[in-house]
C-alpha cells in the first residue's frame, strides 16, 4: 500500500515536471469551453444546467485521455525503467494501480478546473446542483474507464503514437457501441441478447443516465468493473512484455 502510494506520488509529480500537464489542462479547458458555448449553445438554451457542458465529455475524453495514457507504460518499456521498476520490491498490482490512480487524479484536476462554469451557472440562474455534482462524478468515472483502456494499450507497445491511435479507436468503439452505427451492424444477424450486450457497453448510455442526476449503482458498477478488467489486462500485458 505504501509502495503503491510512492509510485502514485512519483507518477503524479511526473506530470507537472514536464509541459504535458499544462498543455493538457489548457487544451482541455479550451475545448470544454468551445463545446459548451458554441456547439452546446449554453446561453441560447437559457436553461440553468450544465447539460451542454457534460454532453461532449465522452467525445473529448476519447481524444484527450489517450494522450494522457499513451506514455504510461510504453515510455517505461522504451527507456528501460520498466526493468528497474519491476526489480524493485513492488508488486505488479501496486505499480499498475499506482500509475493508473496518478493518471486519474491528474484528470480529476483538469476536470475540477472547470469549476468556474459551475459558479457561472449558479450566478446566472438556479440550477439543480445535485444533478451537476452527479455529472461530475459520472464524468470522472467515465474518464477512469477511458484511462484504464489507454493504460492497458500503452503496456502493449513501446511506441507512444501506436498506443495513442489504438486507444483512440477502442475508446471510440466504446462510445459508439450504443449507437445504431454499431448496433445495426450486429442486429441483422446476431441474437438480440448479443446486440443488447454490445449496446450495454456504451459509455454514452451509462454516462447519460448518471448525468441526468441519477447515480444508479448499476452504472457505477459498470465503470468499476470495466476499470478493474482493463487494469487486470494491463498487468497481463506487462507480464508478457517483460520477456521481450
Amino acid at each position, binding site marked *: 500500500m505504501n509502495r503503491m502510494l510512492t509510485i502514485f506520488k512519483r507518477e503524479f509529480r*511526473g506530470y507537472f515536471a514536464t509541459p504535458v500537464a499544462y498543455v493538457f489542462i489548457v487544451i482541455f479547458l479550451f475545448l470544454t469551453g468551445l463545446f459548451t458555448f458554441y456547439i452546446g449553445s449554453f446561453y441560447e438554451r437559457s436553461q440553468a444546467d450544465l447539460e451542454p457542458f457534460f454532453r461532449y465529455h465522452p467525445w473529448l475524453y476519447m481524444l484527450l485521455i489517450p494522450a494522457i495514457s499513451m506514455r504510461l507504460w510504453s515510455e517505461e518499456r522504451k527507456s*528501460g*525503467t520498466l*526493468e*528497474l521498476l*519491476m*526489480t524493485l520490491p513492488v508488486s505488479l498490482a501496486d505499480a499498475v494501480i499506482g500509475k493508473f490512480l496518478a493518471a486519474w487524479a491528474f484528470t480529476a484536476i483538469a476536470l475540477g478546473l472547470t469549476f468556474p462554469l459551475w459558479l457561472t451557472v449558479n450566478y446566472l440562474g438556479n440550477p439543480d446542483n445535485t444533478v451537476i455534482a452527479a455529472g461530475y462524478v459520472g464524468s470522472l468515472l467515465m474518464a477512469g474507464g477511458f484511462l484504464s483502456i489507454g493504460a492497458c494499450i500503452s503496456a502493449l507497445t513501446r511506441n507512444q503514437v501506436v498506443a495513442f491511435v489504438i486507444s483512440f479507436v477502442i475508446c471510440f468503439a466504446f462510445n459508439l457501441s450504443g449507437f445504431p452505427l454499431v448496433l445495426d451492424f450486429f442486429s441483422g444477424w446476431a441474437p438480440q441478447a448479443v446486440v443488447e450486450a454490445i449496446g450495454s457497453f456504451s459509455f454514452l448510455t451509462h454516462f447519460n443516465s448518471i448525468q441526468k442526476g441519477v447515480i444508479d449503482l448499476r452504472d457505477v458498477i459498470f465503470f468499476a468493473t470495466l476499470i478493474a478488467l482493463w487494469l487486470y489486462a494491463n498487468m497481463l500485458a506487462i507480464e508478457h512484455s*517483460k520477456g521481450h
Partner: protein
Amino acid sequence: MENLIEVRDLHKSFGSLHAVNGVSLNIRRGEVLGFLGPNGAGKSTTMKMITGFIGPSSGSVSVCGHDVGTAPLAAKEKIGYLPEGAPAYGEMTPAQFLDFIADIRGLSGAGKTARIREVVEKINLGGVINQSIETLSKGFKRRVGLAQAILHDPEVLILDEPTDGLDPNQKHEVRALIREMAPNKAIIISTHILEEVDAVCTRAAIIARGQLLFLGTPAELQARSARHNAVTMNVPASDAAAVTERLGGLPDILRIEPGETLGARQRLTALSRTGNPIFDVVHGALRAGDWAFSELFVEPGHLDEVFRTITTVARAPGEVTHS
C-alpha cells in the same frame, strides 16, 4: 560461508532461441563474480532472472534464502540491481530519483536523509544532484544507477556493465567502490573488459551461447593461457637465432616465439611446455650462453586469448569446466 545467491539449472527460451541453457552458480558473501561473455551470450538474461525481472523457463534462483519465483518481493528487497544501460526516470533529478528509490526501499526519516547523503558523497553525485537526469552525461547517468542500486545497502548486488561508458578515472573509482563493498556482500558484475576481472573479481564465469563454460578464479583463468608462465626476454638481434636454437632445445620449453624488433634488439618469448614456471631455466640458459639480455619477465597469461579460446571453441552441451 553462506551462499547468498544460489542459481540452479537455469534455462530460458525466447521462442526457438535458447538464451540460457542450464546455468548453475553459488555465490557466497565476500565474493565478487565477474560475468564474462560475448554479446548475446546470455549474461544479461541470466541477471534478469536472478533479479526476478523475467521468470526462467525452468530452474530456480534463491537470494538470501528467498526463492525469487515464489517470494519475489522478499528476494528483491535483498538485491540492489543496476540494469543494462542504467535506466532512470529522465525528467527527475538525482535527488528526486534517489528519494523515490529510498521510499520504495522503505527508508524513512533521518535515516533516509543520512543514507542518501552518504551515497551521494560516495558516488560523487553532489555536483549534479539537482539537474534532471536526462541532461546528464553517460558517466553521471551510470553513477546515478549505481547510487540507486546500493542505496539500501543490499546484501546482494547485481551490476550489469557498471563501468560501461565511464572514463578511466571513473572506472577506477567504481572498481574501488566495488572492492570496498565486497567483504559484506555477494556481488555479480558483467563486463566486456577482461582487466576488470583481474581488478575486482574473486571469481570469473565465462558464458557463451547460454552455457557456463568456465567457473574459477581469475588466476585459474589466466593459467589456461598458452602464454601462462611464458618468459619474454630482450636480446641483441644478432644473437636471436642462437638463443632461439639453444632455448628451443630445452625439454621444459615448448617453443620460442619472436616478438617485436627494437632497433638492434629483438624480443623473444619462450612458452612453457607444461605451464609450470620456466624462469630459472631460461635465466640459467641465457647466463650460460653469456648473452647480453636486457629484459627478462614472466608473462601472467593473456585473458583475452583464453576468453577467445573458451568462447569460440565448440563444446558439447553441458560440459562445464570447474577449476
